[in-house]
Structures are given as structure tokens and as C-alpha cells.
């Protein structure tokens, strides 16, 4: 599904990514962990076509990231830290706009159904600017999946969310997984990572330091490995 070969990214004489090799199969739920400044977000942004890599190849579903960027962009849903929503628009208008950009069929129904799914039907005609962080994040999730993406790219999705929103987010990820959707998430939250992911990648200094599978939601294994790799060096 996703093939990354020798990916490097340089900014301001600093190598942020120093040769990342990674291959992710369809249907996997992968969490990317690592200390601040390790290059996790950059890796995700390269996959989201926001940042151009300095060198290396990325293939998604056999499509070249550079050449077929329009086809690739249709494949993934991107949920960064900021909401990507227009403040003075209502949830419905926001979803309609992005749905139209992605060429979703029957946008109106799809948008209404999504707003219902994230539990905000009551606020469907309120401008987004009056919402709390949790509510905004729910709409942002709906925005990211409006075109039924094959790949989800999540950048610290759990930060600043209340328990209800976390449950909704986890449910969305799990139900997408059942449909065969691949998920990649950058996170600091080990608990959530262990909860929903079946593969953990630890990034350190722009390189992949460890790559292992987990099952049974074993939080212990994750923090043990992480501490050994990241904190053990300090």
C-alpha cells in the first residue's frame, strides 16, 4: 500500500529525515511514536504531499507521489493538529465545501450522515467558531473522511480531546479498519496507540529506530521498548 524508500528531507542545513525505509500493507493500523523533533510530523506531511522530500521515493498504491498527485490525494484523508475548517461556516457548509472539492457524489446526504455520526446534529447550523476544541475536532474527523479515503493520516489526533471525542475517534478508526482502510497516526499518547494500533514504529533523529507488531493492546510492551530506545540513551 505505502512504499517509502530512502526518504530524506533537509531544511535549513538540518536533516530532518535521514533515510527512512518503510512499507505498510493495506489494513494495518500503524502508530508512529518518538520524541519531539524526531521527524514524525514531517514524515506524515511528506505522505500528505504537503512537503516535498529532498530525495527518495514514495509510492502509494503503486502510484508515484509526485506524478499522480491528484489520484494519490483522493486516496487519503488528512487530519492534522489544526482543524482545517472555516470559522464562520457551519459544520454542514464546511463538509459540503470539502466534499465538493473531492468530487463526492450525493454530498448533502453524506455530510448530514457524518455530522450525525460524530454526534453534532444539534449544532449542524451553528458557525464553527463558537465550538469547543472537542467539537471542532469531531467535525475535523468528519471532514477528513468525507470522501471515504483508503488511507488515514492522523497527526496527534488525541491531544486536547475529552473522553467522548476520543471514543468517537477510536470508533471511526476501528470501523474504517474493518472496511480495509490503512491508518497512520503520529501520537504521544501510548495508551491510545496501544488501544487501536497493531503496529508501532518508533522514530528517532530522523530514522526508524524500531518497528514491531503488538497484539492484545499491550501497553506495557510499547512503553518498555520506547523507554529502552529513547529515554535509555539520555
Amino acid at each position, binding site marked *: 500500500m505505502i512504499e517509502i524508500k530512502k526518504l530524506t528531507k533537509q531544511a535549513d542545513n538540518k536533516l530532518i529525515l535521514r533515510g527512512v525505509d518503510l512499507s505498510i500493507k493495506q489494513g494495518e493500523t500503524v502508530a508512529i511514536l518518538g520524541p519531539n523533533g524526531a521527524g514524525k510530523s514531517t514524515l506524515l506531511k511528506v505522505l500528505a504531499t504537503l512537503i516535498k522530500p529532498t530525495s527518495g521515493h514514495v509510492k502509494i498504491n503503486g502510484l508515484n507521489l509526485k506524478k499522480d498527485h491528484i489520484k494519490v490525494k483522493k486516496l487519503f484523508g488528512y487530519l492534522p493538529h489544526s482543524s482545517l475548517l472555516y*470559522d464562520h461556516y457551519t459544520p454542514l457548509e464546511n463538509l459540503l465545501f470539502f466534499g465538493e472539492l473531492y468530487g463526492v457524489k450525493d454530498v448533502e446526504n453524506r455530510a448530514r450522515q457524518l455530522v450525525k455520526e460524530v454526534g453534532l446534529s444539534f449544532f449542524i447550523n451553528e458557525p464553527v467558531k463558537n465550538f469547543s476544541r472537542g467539537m471542532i475536532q469531531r467535525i475535523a474527523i468528519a471532514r477528513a473522511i468525507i470522501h471515504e479515503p483508503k488511507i488515514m493520516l492522523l497527526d496527534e489526533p488525541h491531544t486536547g480531546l475529552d473522553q467522548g471525542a476520543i471514543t468517537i475517534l477510536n470508533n471511526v478508526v476501528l470501523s474504517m479498519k474493518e472496511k480495509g482502510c490503512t491508518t497512520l497516526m503520529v501520537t504521544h499518547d501510548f495508551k491510545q496507540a496501544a488501544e487501536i494500533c497493531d503496529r508501532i514504529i518508533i522514530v528517532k533523529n530522523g530514522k526508524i529506530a524500531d518497528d514491531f507488531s503488538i497484539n492484545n493492546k499491550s501497553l506495557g510492551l510499547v512503553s518498555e521498548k520506547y523507554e529502552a530506545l529513547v529515554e535509555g540513551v539520555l
Partner: protein
Amino acid sequence: MFRAALTIAKKDIYSELRTKQVLGTMIIFAGLVILVLSFAFDPANNTTKAVIPGAVWIIIVFSGILGLNRSLVSEQRNDTMHGLLVAPMEASSIYLGKFMANFSMILIVEIVAVPFLFLLFDFKVNGSILYFILVLFVGSFGFIAIGTFLAALASNSKSSEMLLPLLLFPMTSPVLIGVTQATKIILTNMEKLPSAIAWLQLVAAYDVIFFVLCFLLIEYVLEV
């Protein structure tokens, strides 16, 4: 590509209709420029008529620059520009959409402000209104095309509202020279029409060259 651009333009205009922030500011600003002009040039004096064709463009340029800066900076809130960039379309669609929204906005300002100016200064048009509209259209096209592009460029800076005029005014000087000359001829002295048309052709050539150039280069500007 065109469909995506249209969606973006629709979004911008719709959100403008909802907040009425930018358009309202632009029109009030245009009115204030007219007021200042009336202080600078005595409206009762007959020689003042000579500066009216130039005043039309002073109003358009100064109120236009307010809207241009706003249209790109507003996409930085909640990083919505990233949302547009990850959507399946070319970067040039974003440019085209923004251009269409800005262009329709400046046309509305012109429709309101220009008759107002003529009325307040008691200016009688001795030429062809049709040609005048053509000049307004061609001139605003060039000004907004390059303006949208440079606003996208300047929006990367924290002080974009200061940077934009510095970039935009020298760059559009051929358009401004061309349209002020053409407007002067068309509004006061129709006998020289061929030379006004020559000016129009120059501005149109500028429009085409820079529209194409901006189209090709916008990808490098919007890259994160």
C-alpha cells in the same frame, strides 16, 4: 480544474456575503478616498475634472489592495490552506478560484464607487461608457491577476499587509500607466480613440503574459 476553482470562488464569495467584512471595508475605504480627493482637489474648480480619470484608478488600487491581502491571509486561520493543498486538484486551481473571487469583489466595488465619484464631482462623461467599462474590466483583470499571485507570495510573511503594496505597485506600473492614459482619453477626448485602443492592447498583452506566468509559478509559491 475549473470546477474546483469555481467551488473555491463560490466558497469565498459566499463567506463574504455572510460576514460582509471585506467588501464593506473596501467600499467604505473607496468612499473615504473620494472624500480625501475632494479636499485635495477643489470639486468646484473646473480644472479638477482633469484628475477624475486618474482618481478612478486611485480608488480601485487602494481599495483593491485591502481585499487582496485579506483573501489569502484568511486561509491561514486553522491552516485551511493546507486543507486546500491536500485536496485533489492542481495548485493553479486555488489561484484561479481566488482570482475569480477577488475579481468579482473588485467589480462590485467599482460598480458602487465609480458612479459615486462621478456624481460627487459632478463629472460629465464626454466619451463612450462602453469603452470605459471595457477599460475598467481589462485593467482590473491585470491588477487582480498579479495582485492575487503576489498576495499569496506575501502571505508567507508576518507583515504581509506592509509587504504587499511594495511588491504590487512597481510590478503593476505598466497596467496603471496604460489604463490611466486610456481612461483619460475615453472619458474626455474621444477623438484620440485609436491611441486609447493601443493602450488597451498593451494592458491586455500584460494581462495575458502575467496570467500565464502566475499560473505556471503559483505551484512554487503555495508549496509548504
